[in-house]
């Protein structure tokens, strides 16, 4: 199936209008794969037929299905491992001291896809029950994809998914085998709340998050929208909270509200407003 430039442009426009995300080159090559099951389900043989239905606007629900199919939901448990080791060994012990009187932690997984990141976070706490006894751990996980959030909320994963990133001991401790797949234990599911939300919108309730994770999400936004997203993420953070980005992502040159935590690679803090801005905010284009 050939994807013409005009079809790519229409799909790119639809994706950006609905989500703010760009149809980057890394997504463009997988358009065929992403939309093949939708074509099969509708008995269509070419992408152009699908585009024609979209353009005529005969089926409003179709646009939503196309957008869902184009979104990249690639994720796995403890993705890249290092950031979770950093949280477990350094950030969470520090927060345990700082929040000792309130005994509450708020964490936001922004762009959580099908939920593996959020459940990985929940496991960091569940694996150390003595340390966190009496604490309220509130993990909010959001994604722009309704389908991804539905799957995340179910907490059920295929055999292929459940072992991606998880050690076998952790897998059998926290997942139960059922007819539908491997389901996260109740203890994990009650720690995490899932919500459909776009990172470009106003931050979700309640705000004041101690840790915000937004990994491998902002790379799909234009420079202008990325600056807006950083603004939203910064607004959601506790004054002494952290933002965690994906490997290869940075705030440098993109926002004045956040600055690298030099002691913790990959983590960013709110910039001190009293300091003069070091760099200009990137302009879209």
């Amino acid at each position, binding site marked *: 199936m050939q994807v013409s430039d005009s079809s790519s442009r229409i799909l790119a426009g639809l994706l950006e209008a609905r989500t703010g995300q760009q149809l980057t080159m890394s997504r463009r090559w997988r358009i065929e794969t992403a939309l093949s099951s939708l074509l099969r389900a509708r008995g269509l043989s070419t992408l152009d037929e699908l585009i024609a239905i979209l353009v005529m606007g005969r089926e409003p629900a179709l646009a939503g299905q196309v957008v869902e199919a184009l979104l990249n939901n690639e994720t796995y448990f403890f993705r890249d491992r290092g950031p979770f080791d950093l949280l477990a060994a350094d950030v969470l012990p520090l927060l345990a001291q700082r929040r000792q009187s309130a005994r509450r932690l708020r964490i936001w997984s922004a762009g959580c896809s099908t939920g593996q990141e959020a459940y990985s976070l929940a496991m960091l706490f569940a694996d150390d029950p003595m340390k966190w006894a009496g604490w309220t751990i509130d993990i909010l996980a959001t994604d722009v994809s309704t389908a991804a959030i539905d799957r995340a909320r179910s907490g059920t994963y295929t055999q292929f998914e459940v072992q*991606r990133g998880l050690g*076998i001991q952790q897998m059998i401790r926290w997942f139960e085998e059922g007819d539908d797949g491997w389901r996260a234990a109740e203890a994990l599911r009650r720690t995490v709340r899932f919500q459909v939300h776009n990172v470009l919108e106003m931050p979700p309730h309640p705000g004041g998050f101690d840790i915000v994770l937004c990994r491998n999400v902002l790379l799909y936004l234009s420079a202008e929208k990325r600056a807006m997203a950083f603004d939203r993420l910064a607004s959601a953070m506790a004054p002494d909270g952290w933002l965690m980005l994906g490997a290869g992502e940075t705030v440098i040159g993109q926002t004045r509200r956040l600055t690298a935590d030099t002691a913790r690679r990959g983590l960013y803090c709110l910039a001190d407003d009293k300091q003069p801005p070091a760099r200009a905010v990137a302009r879209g284009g």
Partner: protein
Amino acid sequence: MKTCLIVDDSKVIRKVARHILETLEFQVEEAGDGREAMTRCEEAMPDVVLLDWNMPVMSGMEFLKLLRQRGHGDQPKVVFCTTENDMAHIRAALEAGADEYVMKPFDRETLHIKLQLVGVA
């Protein structure tokens, strides 16, 4: 360079696993059943064994029990890699001394992480 012994009666699986392991910079040896695997281990103990469950001559479980009975200090890590994917088999493998467990089908990322978790990658 770390060494990995692939023990599987399927040539296709051995070929796929070899390809993945070589991209992860392992030196790879192969065996088609548990007995052949034991002979390989007696010749030169690998760092890690990627072990199928159901094989002719000697099963993966029989091999694992024999291997762990040796009691030598040069015990390799053992990662089961099998289509036996229910909880009972997983628990039995761990009790017999397996370090990790991969359920077929799997991809490069999954295997790489499992090998990292047992400390050989």
